């Protein structure tokens, strides 16, 4: 068997660069009512740049593909534990890793505690978003 993710439910979520873009700052995910219930279990996720989706469903501008190697993402669970800490965004883009999706040991997450950081601000503009597809199941 050569397994890849099977998607039961998914939701596009975004973290927006509000205010000035700077290293050392945390840019939090925007709340999604669908994912704010306590019975949501995240088991995989992928990232998208403008090459994968030119504009977010919210209408916001998505970061350029060239900026993907300047961003890391941190996910926190409902106990505030950073179970994914500073994961390189580049490796979460399916087409960069042979079409595979990153599976997670499943967690109930607190979306608005999750955030992205930049390691280099070059090319990233205020109000752009980093877009993710979160794959989840329901308890």
């Amino acid at each position, binding site marked *: 068997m*050569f*397994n*890849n993710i099977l*998607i039961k439910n998914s939701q596009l979520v975004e973290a927006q660069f509000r205010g000035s873009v700077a290293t050392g700052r945390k840019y939090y995910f925007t709340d999604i009512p669908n994912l704010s219930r306590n019975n949501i279990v995240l088991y*995989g996720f992928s990232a998208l740049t403008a090459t994968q*989706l030119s504009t977010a469903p919210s209408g916001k501008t998505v970061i350029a593909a060239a900026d993907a190697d300047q961003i890391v993402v941190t996910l926190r669970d409902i106990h505030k534990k950073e179970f994914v800490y500073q994961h390189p965004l580049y490796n979460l883009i399916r087409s960069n890793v042979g079409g595979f999706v990153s599976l997670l*040991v499943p967690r109930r997450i607190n979306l608005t505690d999750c955030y992205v950081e930049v390691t280099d601000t070059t090319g990233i503009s205020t109000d752009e978003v980093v877009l993710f*597809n979160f794959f989840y199941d*329901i308890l």
Partner: protein
Amino acid sequence: MILTTDIVEAMPAKTAHELMEEYVSLGWAADYSSPPAANSKTVAIRLNDIQGTRTYMFQDEILDRSVIRAVEFVDSTSMGLNPKIKDPVSGDYYPNLSSADIAKLVFYFSSGDQDIIAVPGNSANLRLQNGKHFLTQIENIRWGDCYILLTGSAIGGVPVACIRVWYDG
């Protein structure tokens, strides 16, 4: 297997091999080297070419009664012309969308007013994903409730989205 809090809380202690077995039994992972399903069909639809608008799929009773195992956005590199919708004057099939145009689209599996799965076009293009399907396990939906959202700017011309659907049932 039905997902419970106990199952989720026990998972961090498991080995990678045990985890993958559990993922398969929960329907969270599947073998990508096997055929996704016993049947497949091509669906094409002309898009509303206005940014932010939805194009709902035509009703399909076969897909309504089936388990949908995978979807694929076909781009013009993979197949130049769509095989379903023709220009009424010339009789020629309309071209498929380029990969750049597919990157303006999100397909939503929906049931009633609830979106179940968001499928960004690029993520479901077999060529761009090294042959890995966008695997799903969707059943008991109305295909006519599913739609394509044009998130990007207008495509121009006669934009026809060409989707391959893999299904059992």
